[in-house]
């Protein structure tokens, strides 16, 4: 098991690579805000929770991670680099030219990308089908982790899939909500209220815990906690743009570009 310091260092390296990819994307920019908010979740998953072997990426016994809020692709690429799926060259060339690692990840299981993403609301259905398929095949140990955004939960399909996850008894599913409270046009509360977010999941039969999404120990405990008979939801309270002060809690940093100066500022913030 990794120490808190090791996980935090891992998260810091992921953030540095997110900033680098955003900067190198030039005028196009990247989804910096939601990538920074999901970073600690990915660091804990790849650092200390997921069962995987980047040397044997198609192992049927592997855990599957589905990044349904796929616009946080740069965070996924940075995490996959830490996990041994992507090289430093892959990171250095991402979001540029004909790199296969662009703004939304494209299905590439050899490189740890289970499914393509970009159209919101669809990841949990894929996770549900995968989880059901694994059970039908008698593979009971792999877990399916699906990361959704709180804004993404506006999509009706999330709830079609959520109901199916519990209906089919898919206790091999863990949903993580990156609850940064912001969506493209503003605060989640102002754009579309979701009522009692935890209650929605609970009422369908999920085991729900709410944690600080930037506290690696709290995340690890929640992710590792065994719940034998029910699928799990972890609502991770996060800050959009976390770690880069000028982007924190600012809707305009949903996507953004980093000038040379801002990039240097971001690096200083992350290293602080």
């Amino acid at each position, binding site marked *: 098991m990794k120490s808190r310091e090791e996980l935090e260092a891992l998260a810091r390296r992921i953030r540095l690579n997110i900033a680098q990819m955003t900067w190198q994307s030039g005028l196009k920019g990247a989804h910096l805000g939601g990538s920074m908010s999901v970073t600690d979740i990915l660091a804990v998953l790849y650092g200390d929770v997921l069962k995987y072997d980047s040397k044997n990426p198609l192992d049927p016994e592997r855990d599957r991670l589905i990044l349904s809020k796929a616009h946080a692709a740069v965070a996924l690429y940075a995490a996959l680099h830490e996990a041994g799926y992507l090289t430093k060259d892959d990171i250095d060339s991402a979001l540029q030219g004909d790199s296969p690692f662009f703004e939304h990840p494209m299905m590439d299981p050899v490189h740890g990308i289970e499914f393509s993403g970009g159209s919101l609301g669809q990841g949990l259905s*894929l996770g*549900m089908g995968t*989880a059901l*398929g694994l059970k039908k095949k008698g593979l009971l140990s792999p877990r399916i982790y699906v990361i959704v955004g709180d804004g993404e939960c506006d999509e009706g*399909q999330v709830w079609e899939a959520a109901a199916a996850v519990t209906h089919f008894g898919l206790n091999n599913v863990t949903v993580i909500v990156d609850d940064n409270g912001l969506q493209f046009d503003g605060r989640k509360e102002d754009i579309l209220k979701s009522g009692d977010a935890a209650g929605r999941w609970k009422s369908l039969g999920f085991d729900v815990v709410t944690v600080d999404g930037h506290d690696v120990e709290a995340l690890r405990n929640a992710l590792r906690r065994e719940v034998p008979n029910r699928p799990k939801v972890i609502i991770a309270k996060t800050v959009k743009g976390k770690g880069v002060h000028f982007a924190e809690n600012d809707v305009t940093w949903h996507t953004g570009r980093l000038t040379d100066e801002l990039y240097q500022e971001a690096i200083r913030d992350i290293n602080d």
Partner: protein
Amino acid sequence: MIEITKKNIRVWSMLGMRRILGPAMKDIIEQDRKVLFATADTGRYYAYDDLLRTYPENVVDVGIAEQNLIGASAGLQNEGFNVYAVTYATFLTSRALDQIRVNLGYMGLGVKLIGEAGGMCDGNFSATHMALEDISNTRNIPNMRVITPADGMELVKTLIALKDAAYPAYVRMTGRFPIPVIYREDYNFEIGKAVTLREGKDVAILSNGTLLGDVLKTAEMLAEKGVDCKVINLHTVKPLDEEALRAVAGCKLVVTAEEHLLYGGIGSAVAEFYAQEPIRPRMLMLSVGTQYPKAQEYDDLLKTCGLTAPQMAESILTAL
């Protein structure tokens, strides 16, 4: 059930496509347990009781949730299952079109979509239950094959032919019951290979689905008026059988007849092909038109849209 015998051909005609589906899928599953029958709360339409009783593990009903039907099917397909996802054609291909686009088109996962009530056969339920854009929607999706079987035997052959296919496909079921028998005996079915049902040299009529019953009658009526009509079953709309289309390009008139809105259906597909050919025939596109018809019984709807045999014969004579 899926044995091709004279008796089964008669039985299939009486049952109609939707009630063939459940028993046929049961036989397919009997031979390959990796096949799954996924539906969005329309299972009973397909006489699936026996399938459900015998192989409950092979039936996945996700409830009235077509978007999740596609995503869940894609997830299952990716884990090595062979999924046939079945529900009302319009809810499947219009409501869940983005899911089809991303999961089947973009990712290329080989889920087989089976749309029931393609065209207007459930038109008494109103335009909400007519599938009039399904061909247009699906044939534009990369990687997708699009097939409209003519009768019960061709539906069974299509389901079998698709079983081990790596690509996604859309199968459009049409007609109520009974449905016309287009093939009285076994024949060679190949995806992408059109079938000539009747020879003729003046006019070629391209159609598919149960409408072919009326199209064959149209050709008979025209023969009495001295017009020699070839009838082609264009069961595969994508990929088009280009060779078959080139072979009739010299006819005085190429007619397409379909239970679909004018834009985007087989008329469009055929016209798109000819537009880039050196020899281009004149075309007449018989279709539902450009508006949603008002709810009516199926036979009356065909009349409203000019798709009965005498009306189609009349339209062709006028065009000539």
